[in-house]
């Protein structure tokens, strides 16, 4: 019952050094590369964020010319979404999905490597676009035409980077779906799968659904720019609003692509440290599926101020608010899991509770934004910035931190430095709120986003926000230190360092062997 592996019997031919990573077909190697790439992009995107906050520290133009400031906000968004958050989740899926379903590897091991190695190419296109004539794209991460119909080489580099990132995501998703549907250990029925696996199955479906639409969208933009088509040009019968419809048909499911795996992670961590099974497992699965389906029919709530028939506004408003129902189910279930559990507060648990707490704030401000008359007021203000950073930073990113601390003992064989890790959590928690909570007030007072200067009455809150952002940025260097320290040594981790953990990966030794589950485990 052994896995047929070409390298069996002649392990000495296995490439070593850099070639091991370049040519690998091992899901753990590839997962590691995804996670490191994601962290590198997180640093680049973070650098851009620091630049933005430094410029906004005081009114007036200090360090960034307006055009460069716009490039900074644009590339900050693109790099964080496509370079940091999404690859981090795919990296976690690569490491954990085969371990959690009892598979020897991903279904398509070679393609898995390619979907990773496309990312550095796309990253290079994005970053180097800062240095070409005309500079990087500066039309916002949503690159609406007609603004994005202008601009030079940098915009085209962004378009091709998005094509490549999309191809990588589609390949990665097909791989994950196939692994989950076809490689589960005997006895692991769909409704016995860990929730992280479930949420990734649904996320991967969403990715295959919307990534090609984004590819079509940027293709139309490209031909409008260079080949004289008129998709987004009213003179030729097209419409710039058409771009927004196509973009957000991708873009709204995209935000759930960045949060559903986070839901899965939190649904693994909270039961472990509450020492209770997850409350309402099946309702969690159905809630995830409902969120995914609803996410495909709410896109135009990003476009309430564009001009839309009232019936359209009403439909998209109510459909959006409906998403609060399955999301509420999830929050209820996490809380109910903790209720009367024997809870302990290890770092992953801290990040998970922080996640639930702050994500709910982001969720509620999302409901606020969904209300048409209010959205018309807060559209393109810092209120929206605050809203989506509460769901993406204290939502998606916090869950990634939690996941890394949760699985680091399994990956490295060592326990991380608990004190420093907890410090990382508390500093992140405090500085995050300092940076972003005040932005709600700025937005409600009418401060527009994507503008390098502001009126004097916004000065105090902006200074507070910048201090918080600098603190948050510096704190992440501590995270890097904790991870490197854990890789290099530390207290030996047990095979199951968390007594409440139940999923399959904890049946393996720590660190997990290079080839695992060559003989599939049997699930009862």
């Amino acid at each position, binding site marked *: 019952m052994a896995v047929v592996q070409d390298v069996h019997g002649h392990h000495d031919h296995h490439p070593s050094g850099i070639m091991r990573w370049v040519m690998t077909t091992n899901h753990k190697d590839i997962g590691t590369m995804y996670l490191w790439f994601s962290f590198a992009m997180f640093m680049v995107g973070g650098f851009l964020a620091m630049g933005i906050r430094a410029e906004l520290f005081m009114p007036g133009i200090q360090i960034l010319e307006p055009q460069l400031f716009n490039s900074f906000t644009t590339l900050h968004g693109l790099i964080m979404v496509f370079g940091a958050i999404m690859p981090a989740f795919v990296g976690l899926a690569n490491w954990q999905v085969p371990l959690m379903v009892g598979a020897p590897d991903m279904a398509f091991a070679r393609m898995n490597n390619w979907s990773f190695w496309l990312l550095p190419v796309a990253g290079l296109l994005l970053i180097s676009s800062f240095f070409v004539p005309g500079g990087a794209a500066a039309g916002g991460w949503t690159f609406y035409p007609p603004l994005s119909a202008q601009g030079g080489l940098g915009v*085209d580099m962004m378009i091709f980077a998005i094509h490549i990132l999309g191809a990588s995501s589609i390949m990665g998703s097909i791989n994950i779906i196939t692994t989950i549907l076809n490689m589960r250990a005997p006895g692991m029925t769909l409704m016995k799968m860990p929730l992280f696996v479930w949420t990734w199955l649904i996320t991967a479906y969403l990715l295959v659904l919307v990534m090609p639409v984004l590819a079509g969208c940027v293709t139309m933009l490209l031909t409008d720019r260079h080949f004289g088509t008129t998709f987004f040009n009213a003179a030729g019968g097209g419409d710039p609003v058409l771009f927004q419809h196509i973009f957000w048909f991708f873009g709204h499911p995209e935000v759930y692509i960045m949060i559903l795996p986070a839901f899965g992670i939190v649904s693994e961590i909270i039961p472990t440290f509450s020492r209770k099974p997850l409350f309402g497992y099946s309702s969690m699965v159905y809630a995830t599926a409902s969120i995914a389906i609803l996410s495909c029919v709410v896109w135009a709530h990003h476009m309430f101020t564009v001009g839309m028939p009232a019936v359209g506004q009403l439909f998209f408003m109510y459909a959006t608010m409906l998403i609060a129902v399955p999301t509420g189910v999830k929050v209820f279930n996490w809380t109910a899991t903790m209720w009367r559990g024997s809870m302990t507060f290890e770092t992953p648990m801290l990040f998970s509770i922080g996640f639930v707490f702050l994500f709910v704030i982001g969720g509620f401000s999302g409901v606020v934004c969904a209300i048409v008359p209010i959205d018309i007021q807060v559209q393109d203000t810092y209120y929206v910035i605050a809203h989506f950073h509460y769901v993406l930073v204290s939502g998606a990113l916090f869950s990634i931190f939690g996941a890394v601390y949760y699985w680091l003992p399994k990956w490295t064989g060592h326990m991380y430095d608990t004190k420093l890790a907890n410090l990382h959590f508390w500093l992140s928690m405090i500085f995050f709120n300092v940076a972003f909570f005040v932005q709600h007030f700025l937005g409600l007072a009418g401060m527009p986003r994507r503008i390098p200067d502001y009126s004097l009455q916004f000065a105090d809150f902006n200074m507070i926000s910048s201090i918080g952002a600098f603190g948050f940025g510096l704190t992440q260097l501590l995270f890097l230190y904790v991870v490197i320290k854990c890789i290099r040594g530390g207290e030996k981790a047990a095979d199951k360092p968390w007594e409440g953990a139940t999923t399959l990966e904890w049946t393996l030794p720590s660190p997990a062997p290079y080839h695992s589950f060559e003989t599939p485990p049997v699930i009862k």
Partner: protein
Amino acid sequence: MSQGTGHYYVPAPSKWPIVGSSAIFFLGFGAAMTMNKIPAGYYMLGIGFAILIYMLFGWFGDVARESEEGKYGMQEDKSFRWGMSWFIFSEVMFFCAFFGALFYMRVLSIPWLADVNHDLLWPNFTADWPTAGPGIAEKFTPMGAWGLPAFNTFLLLTSGVTVTLAHWALKQNRRPALKMWLLATVVLGATFLACQIYEYGHAYADLNLKLTSGAYGSTFFMLTGFHGFHVTLGTIMLTVIYFRCAAGHFKPEHHFGFEGVAWYWHFVDVVWLGLFIFVYLL
């Protein structure tokens, strides 16, 4: 559903992914530069395509070899089926974006441009289809449905039948019939492409219908163009399968390479039906 035998083929470390990525590196930078008329871009595109073709030969060659060596069992076969299905689904969604653009223009943006709110801006514009939009003065003649396009529909539908006949022949191990029907499919696909090229020439030369002819030109050429590109890929894939059949590959009970290509071929067939109805006919 799950692992039947416990054997799953995990390939050894391979250079093809990184070769593919270096091709994409040259193609990405090369395309961006070419669009901006930077001469080095053409060379980069050339290098990129060369590496890509090398990678495709090498990678698919490896897969075909592994398949013939019997390394793929039932479970791997199922993985390929899932993989191909989801890939085709992603392709469907790609075309949906362009069909969506077509419907949006015809149903929403063009009537809006002709309504009373736009009278001052475009006083003489009426919401007819086909149109180049209110701001493009150059006249064109739309492509009719019942000449070459109808013949092309006939060609593609027939090719769907012939590829199925080839599949039956493969399943019953009638190798000469398999090769004959497969060759017929390739010929039908190539004929379709030739007709399509002729049609484009006719559009530019006689009808003054161009990519730049506003809403109609944009959607007509982008939709039929991407479809034509997919037919080209499909024809190349069928050709590869033909040579693999000629080399004795595939067994009556184990031939997913053939089936995957056949699925793809049916997919381009179905997209064409959508095109014929919504682009040519209506």
